């Protein structure tokens, strides 16, 4: 009677076992790393827009202040998207016939808002407030990335909870003087107060910043 297991049985068994193990490790690793990939977080992926608005041109090139368009960033939870009217303050004078701006003119003429595709979105159970971050010296670029270099806007950071918490637990490295919050090219100098000094100056209490109720209500 021939043996139940042939000469290759051992090697086959090992192969199967190792493949399974490798598969499991890959899966687990994938599950760990996938949410952090830019495919999942959309970081660095430019969103198509009905009007290809370029921050690179308007901010980097022309030097517009963030608050010219995002008017409520200092006082409200939302930074505010500019109404069509804001676009037309300039574009009723320049590039008045540009093909690219047809949707903007259309919007003003018909009273229909432009529907932009969201770049930064938070889930409904997160209650984020722009005003307080700006007031405490968290700069626009800290979260939104080098906006002045974005021809089409992309997400500057993952906006995942762990990313939020990194800063809420240890805000010092991400702070700068309030005056420089809207500065695109700010670099700390020798005279710049340290993060710890800024925390004291702005009364930032990290021991209370990681409470669930800070963001979830």
């Amino acid at each position, binding site marked *: 009677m021939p043996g139940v297991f042939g000469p290759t049985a051992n090697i086959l068994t090992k192969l199967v076992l190792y493949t399974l193990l490798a598969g499991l490790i890959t899966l687990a690793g994938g599950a760990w790393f996938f*949410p952090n990939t830019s*495919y*999942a*977080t*959309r970081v660095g992926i430019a*969103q*198509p827009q009905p009007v290809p608005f370029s921050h690179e041109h308007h901010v980097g090139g022309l030097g517009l202040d963030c608050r010219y368009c995002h*008017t*409520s960033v200092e*006082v*409200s*939870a*939302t930074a*505010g*998207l*500019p*109404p*069509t*009217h804001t676009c037309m303050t300039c574009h009723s004078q320049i590039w008045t016939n540009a093909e690219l701006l047809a949707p903007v003119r259309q*919007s*003003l003429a018909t*009273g*229909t*808002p*432009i*529907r*932009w*595709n*969201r770049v930064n*979105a938070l889930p*409904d*159970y997160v*209650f984020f*407030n722009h*005003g*307080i971050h700006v*007031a*405490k010296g968290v700069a626009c670029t800290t979260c939104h990335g080098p906006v002045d270099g974005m021809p089409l806007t992309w997400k500057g950071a993952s906006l995942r909870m762990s990313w939020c918490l990194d800063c809420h637990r240890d805000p010092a490295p991400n702070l700068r003087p309030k005056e420089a919050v809207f500065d695109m090219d700010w670099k700390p100098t020798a005279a710049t107060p340290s993060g710890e000094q800024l925390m004291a100056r*702005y*009364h930032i*209490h990290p*021991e*209370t910043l990681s*409470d*669930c*109720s*800070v963001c*979830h*209500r």
Partner: protein
Amino acid sequence: MTARKELAERIEGRLAGRSGRSLWRSLDELAREPAVLEMLRAEFPGLPDLAEARVGRRRLLELMGASFALAGLTGCGPGEAAGEAADQAIPYVTTPPGLVPGVARHVATAISRGGYADGVLVVQQMGRPVQLEGNPDHPASLGALDPIIQAGILDLYDPDRSRSVLKAGRAASTNGMLKALVDRLPALAANGGGGLRLLTGTVTSPTLARQVAALKRRFPAMQWHRWEADGRDTLRAGSVLAFGRPVDTLLHLDRAKTILAIESDFLDGAPGHLRYARDFARRRRAAGEGRPEEMSRLYAIESSPTLAGARADHRFAVRPNEIEAAVRALAAELGAGPAEWRRNAPGWLAAVARDLSASRSTALVHAGPAQPPAVHALVHAINDALGAPGQTVTYIEPVEADPVDHGDSLKGLVADMAAGRVDTLLTLGANPVFTAPADLDFAGALAKVPLSVHLGTAPDETAMLCTWHVPEAHELERWGDLRAFDGTVTIQQPQTRPLWGGWSPQELLAVLDGETRPDGHAIVRATWMERFQGKGDADGMWTDALRLGIVPDSAAAPLSVSLLPGLADRLPPPPASIPASTGGGTLTALFRPDPWLRDGRYANLGWLQELPRPFTTLTWDNALLIAPATAERLGLKNEDVVELRSAAGTLRAPVWRLAGHAPDCVTLPFGFGRRVVGRVGRDVGFDAFPLRRLDQLWQLPGVELRKTGETHRLAATQHHQMIDSPDAVRHATLDAFRRDPGFARSEEPEHSLYPPYEYPRNAWGMAISLDACIGCNACTAACQGENNIAVVGKEEVLRNRQMHWIRIDTWYEGEAAAPEQTLFQPMTCMHCENAPCEVVCPVAATMHDADGLNVMVYNRCVGTRFCSNNCPYKVRRFNYFNYAADDNRLPMSWNPDVSVRARGVMEKCTYCVQRIRNARIAADRENRPIRDGEVKTACQQACPAEAIVFGDLNDPDSAVSRRKASPLDYGVLTDLNTRPRTTYQARLRNPNPELGEA
């Protein structure tokens, strides 16, 4: 060992507290029914019954496997899929001036209740009304709001509201309706408006009054009829009897030391009741705040329990016809009536009379609208004899425009309609087909009117029977004006464009006046420009009035009236004294409005349907209320369906036994049983109107009661979420408090195995004064609106699953027939320092935060319900189903600052953490501490009695710290070492020593 012994002793002590004069919450609890004791023990009573649909082990594994797989799938894919509407950002084309996205705006306006204004501030988010708050500058609100007005926001977004013109109940065009009206005008002009009739509820609007006056000049024969089923005819008639002219009476409870309430609605229904509640509560709290001489004393005489009766130091439950006899006797005692009225006076009367008399001009007597005109006339005479006018009461010109007797007015209209003398009937905002007395047969007469137009916010009974129905714009969608109880005018401004079109009453009247494209704004503005003319900058005054929510100095001036002589001879004869108990089933039926639905107009509002009624705690139903002794005599239990027979007709109603109800009479709350109504109000309760007769609007003697043998389940919440503590409410008389100021305090151990928490910034806490609480439920309604609390429906309430984060526990002390005390205790999450819920949560979904809040993290919650099971206060609520998603209210009506909870998630009071966070952000932006009073919880804001105070315990000068420093301060169930952050201040009573402790 000693610790264990100590514990055993404590438990025994608590059990011992149950015997003797103990507190009870329901007649069943008093009778120690086993079912109630089970409710007391279990957090989820009835849960085993639900296991009928048993899930086996295999099936459970299958389901778990499937749900894990599905849960895994949702984690895949990119964070946001581009292109979907939810992932679009849509800015304005032109931002409206003054609007900042994400920042709430408060806009002043007013909402009417029974025709009278309650000032509100509408909270708007990006131009959309999301919430109503009281307007602190408005005399009838002072910042508080009752549940009905709060539900106005739900009313605005009610998807069952009228959306198009109806012709004979079918959708039709607006132009058709306009043509029908305009075509009628020449004929009306020819005969002077002979067949033209107008029917409204109580009208206080100066603009409507001006328009009607103008119409009357154009059509001199036109008539204006009024009908308010829940109206105040008797008060008007009483003042005519006493003074020979109608007047409105304003109460000054802040000046009243001794008060007699005769089935009075000054705490729950009278115009101005929020103001009255505040004034009353301030004097009641005075003793606990160190000014015992200011504490007022309240007597109540009533048949059907009222909130004022519950707060009375002495409450006398008497049969309805004995009330007038008692008031006559009182008048005689005080020299305001002939001595023979003193015959057969009840024993307690002389003592009450002496007390009132001793207080002289700080005494006050008030009677409710269900009392006959004679009682009101006598009340005027008594107040006059006491010297109250000018002190505790003032008289003003009636706030109602062109006041008439509503009963006579409606009777005249129906007679003319039946006789064919009416060819055009305009009904503005009233629903007489449902609410008119049954003996008038309004519907039958209406059929004889060739052109009837009905204006209403929802298609109702009257809309279906009129030739035309016109959708009415909600009060938050249109221009208008209203007067408050004291005459103060508010100009109503629209908060949003009409969601589904709609006309204002002013606009529809303008059509009759020949305008084809009426403009509500212009009409209202014209009234006020005319009045402001010559007083300075009229445009500026208009803007100021809109901004403030009141027209400054528009309150009515006090009126000097004097009692006409010979009142005793002018009074109608007193009712025949009734035999005490006939032994049979012949009873007197009392008609009273449901506290929330009033005459039925609010029947489609889920918040109000599910808000427990005071005393009965009934939701989603009305019931025939009967005294326990009378019920026993007739062999009736709760939920038994009885048939009521009288000459007027018959009706069937379920029974609810109510402690403190007068014997030999039953209360029939009307407003339920609407026949044509939206999805929420359909098939809810029974309609009591069919027994109501024009000449017997408030009480109907000689009603036969017969048991049918059927039962009807009633969703009462009184046995739900019962806490197991014999001394949850603490109280004492003023004298006992003077002897032992610390009677309410309990010394409790403060041991903990856990290290103590530190609160570097704020430590939030709450104090609730039982001395102030009047049991009105405004807090529960406010919480529901603020915190997006779901409405669950009757079936779910029956399963103990209502979601209210704050409930009012009602406790009684004494006999079932006449409880000596009714105590209300608002009960909500205590935010314990040693929270029992926190330690049992396996996923850390309920946490202590750095301000001492016990927070709920909905996203972590997996629904084990361990926390709820471990909570001795029973204040946690579990979402058994996706209640919020099943609600048919419009999505934009939810509060955007608060998460809407999903199925399988536990929730509870958060101390309005969203308000704390917004205040914190505002303060931190300015680098300053949060000011005391800057954070107001929704319940605190709505409370008319200022019973709830919230603030920072780290600040010894904060209002809450001062409240908690009171000797009356105590915590509930502190023997469990929970160290609750919400504490209570015990109730004090101020009984008359002459009447003994009772």
